[in-house]
């Protein structure tokens, strides 16, 4: 699993490797020469066009296959985080709306969706996947407008992955018997699903695709600040002719989510969000015979061993913590670096951070976009202040950031300890803490020493170390010599207080089905 190749190397390859090494040495000399005279690369503004993208200024709810009228008496605003200006207005679903949505989902489940052939369900899901691919650019622009993430990420990651999840689970719809050997598989019924604002359409796909594949119907509540791609998705469902009531969308704040969780007509709750809210939900459904999956917070460790390829590891850090402004539950927000290379890694990281472009999410050059909301910006600032009070040293990259909108500079906090608040608690922003370790065991202990257990990263060139450390880390995902990779075939989810259940892969089907014994043979 290491980066080194153990097999024989041909002469030409050897020559090539030497050549590369020579060039590297020359380059590194140049780099050290230039350290006194930093080169500033100028990037011309390269905005993604929004011309072909259309959306309404006001939206109603999507229930039973149709949009209700926008209701100004229950309106809430959604702003563009890049500018702070109003983008569109939504209708806040109240208890009655939630009831209507759940009943529509129940009706669709009982009359149609719960009993049709898996192959038919699969065909609908394939259509969704294809239509998302066709309209990918439009969805990408909307996602960046609404949520503040760089267009490069929504274009290359969020939207294509969302389509891929639908395509993957489409194929499972008529193969469920193979997913659960010796079991008879039946759907649960109506699923209440509540998703966060960090990956709006992708989280929608993670939730809806497996639920529908297994024969359930859905009432989904997007996050208050990011309803737009979910609303556009419902337009797409009308286009593909998904039967009415199979997917219902209720927009609104946490209160709307509470109505959904407390509704008697749901069979399952799937929630992605904070650990605090996840625990509350779990309490609300106690004694009600409701299944749940929770995808909650994290505080991922990013462990760099001395034998790691440092340049690659530093590039990996950027992806681990500054991807999507650090609004990632599995972000590698705690850097654990082995003492011998700590100074070098921090130096390289600072150099790399200096090149990050923070700004307009729609600019194709942008590395770090806008913070999703004023609230979140305040939270991040508060945590950094706490860190400073606790004695942390703070490094932030320089350069211009827009004067309006919500932005936060990529931030490095050194001189922190295991008990520091910024080390223990999830910040959900572009803030990385740095700790060092001497022994492998110390790295493992530090990595495991939070209530969370969602994801961790290991950087080393030694394969056996990856398997050893990986087996000791208490987290649902281990990225070795990589970070923040996602795929529909790959189960994702947390240990400990990072949640329960898995999304993605064959394991992601289990939360959406009832299993009964199907073993007839003598055992």
């Amino acid at each position, binding site marked *: 699993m290491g980066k080194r190749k153990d097999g024989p190397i041909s002469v030409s390859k050897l020559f090539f490797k030497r050549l590369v090494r020579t060039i590297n040495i020359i380059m590194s000399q140049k780099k050290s020469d230039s350290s006194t005279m930093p080169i500033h690369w100028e990037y011309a503004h390269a905005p993604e066009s929004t011309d072909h993208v259309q959306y309404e200024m006001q939206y109603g709810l999507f229930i039973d296959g149709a949009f209700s009228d926008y209701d100004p008496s229950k309106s809430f605003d959604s702003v563009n985080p890049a500018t702070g200006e109003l983008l569109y207005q939504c209708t806040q679903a109240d208890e009655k709306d939630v009831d209507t949505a759940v009943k529509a989902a129940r009706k669709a489940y009982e009359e149609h969706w719960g009993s049709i052939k898996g192959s038919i369900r699969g065909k609908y899901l394939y259509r969704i996947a294809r239509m998302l691919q066709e309209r990918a650019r439009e969805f990408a622009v909307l996602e960046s407008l609404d949520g503040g993430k760089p267009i490069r990420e929504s274009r290359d990651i969020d939207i294509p992955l969302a389509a891929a999840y639908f395509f993957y689970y489409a194929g499972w719809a008529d193969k469920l018997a193979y997913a659960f050997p010796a079991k008879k598989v039946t759907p649960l019924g109506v699923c209440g699903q509540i998703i966060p604002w960090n990956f709006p359409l992708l989280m929608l796909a993670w939730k809806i695709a497996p639920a529908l594949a297994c024969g359930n119907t859905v009432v989904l509540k997007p996050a208050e600040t990011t309803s737009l791609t979910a609303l556009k998705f419902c337009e797409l469902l009308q286009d593909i002719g998904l039967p009415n009531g199979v997917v219902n969308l209720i927009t609104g704040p946490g209160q709307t989510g509470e109505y959904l969780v407390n509704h008697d007509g749901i069979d399952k709750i799937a929630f992605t969000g904070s650990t605090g809210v996840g625990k509350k939900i779990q309490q609300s459904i106690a004694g009600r015979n409701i299944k749940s999956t929770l995808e909650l917070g994290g505080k991922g460790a990013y462990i760099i061993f001395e034998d790691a390829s440092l340049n690659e590891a530093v590039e990996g850090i950027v992806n681990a913590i500054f991807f999507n402004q650090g609004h990632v539950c599995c972000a590698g927000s705690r850097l654990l670096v082995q003492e011998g290379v700590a100074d070098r890694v921090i130096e390289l990281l600072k150099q790399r951070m200096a090149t990050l472009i923070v700004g307009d999410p729609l600019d194709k050059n942008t590395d770090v976009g806008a913070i999703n909301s004023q609230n979140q910006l305040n939270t991040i600032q508060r945590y950094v202040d706490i860190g400073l009070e606790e004695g942390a040293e703070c490094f932030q990259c320089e350069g211009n950031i827009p004067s309006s909108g919500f932005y936060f500079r990529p931030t490095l906090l050194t001189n922190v300890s295991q008990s520091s608040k910024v080390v223990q608690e999830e910040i959900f922003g572009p803030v990385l803490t740095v700790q060092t370790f001497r022994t492998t065991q110390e790295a493992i202990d530090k990595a495991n020493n939070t209530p969370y257990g969602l994801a961790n990263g290991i950087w080393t060139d030694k394969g056996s170390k990856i398997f050893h450390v990986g087996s000791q880390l208490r987290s649902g*995902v281990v990225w070795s010599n990589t970070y923040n990779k996602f795929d529909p075939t790959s189960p994702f989810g947390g240990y400990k207080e990072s949640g329960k259940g898995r999304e993605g892969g064959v394991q992601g089907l289990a939360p959406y089905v009832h*299993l009964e014994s199907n073993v007839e043979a003598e055992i």
Partner: protein
Amino acid sequence: MSREQELLIIPKTYKNYVGGAFPRTESGRYYKLNSVDGKHLANVCLSTRKDIRNAVQVARKAQASWQNRTAYNQGQIIYRIAEILSGRRHQFEAELESLGYSKEVAQLELESAIDLIVYFAGWTDKVQQVFGAVNPVASHHFNFSRQEAVGVVGMLAPEAPALLGALAMLLPNMVAGNSSIIIASEKLALPLCTFAEVLETSDVPAGVVNILTGKKEELVGHFVSHMDVDALIADPTLSFELRKELEVGSTSNLKRLHFWATGCTVDEIHSTGKSVIENMAKSAKDPYRILDVQEVKTTWHPISE
């Protein structure tokens, strides 16, 4: 002296089983159990919060090394339990009869218990093969998902069947790589206490299985609030109030909570014991319960030159 007096039997002191030792409850409290014909059988420990805390501590210590044993070794250790139990089955049958079981039902429970141990012994080295996965991700990465132990698991054994019900909870957890703390049936506590002697004389490492006796309504709250317990297993025959307490309380640190139908009431054992045990023996052979008390860990690694 009559022969009966000369051969005065030596009654056993029934105690908890924690960390491979047989301590009394630190509280010194007990309750009395009588045989069906009204004779005093035992003073049984009424365990407390402190006993649970001690048990969790040793269970946590034992868990990693149990999980890290090879699957082959785990399988042999579990199989060894069946060997030892098989050799002492008549003792258990007599104990069950003293608690009111018919001879037939007592024998059936022992047969089923031994069978169930052998069944799960065979799963240790198959779980990964049947339920693990190599995932074909759409990028140049090798990606695989493994089943791993959830950690320390608390179990509230059903009131009946005395032994089989507890084993139906314990065995999936042993296969999963967890360490266990079982609260025995209150009315039929003795067979599980005696089973601790079987564990002690087989090769199960100390602390991997711990057995406490006491009142569930006193102990549930201490189980759910303990932040170093990772999962709880109970039987749906538990009262609604206790089930709800489990569901609400286990959110403290998001314990995994599962209700496995492994038991029945003591009355049912006396009235329809045979069919109950036959059904239990069948439904207990469910490898998906192993998955309930495991976590899925997915590992990525790039593929490149």
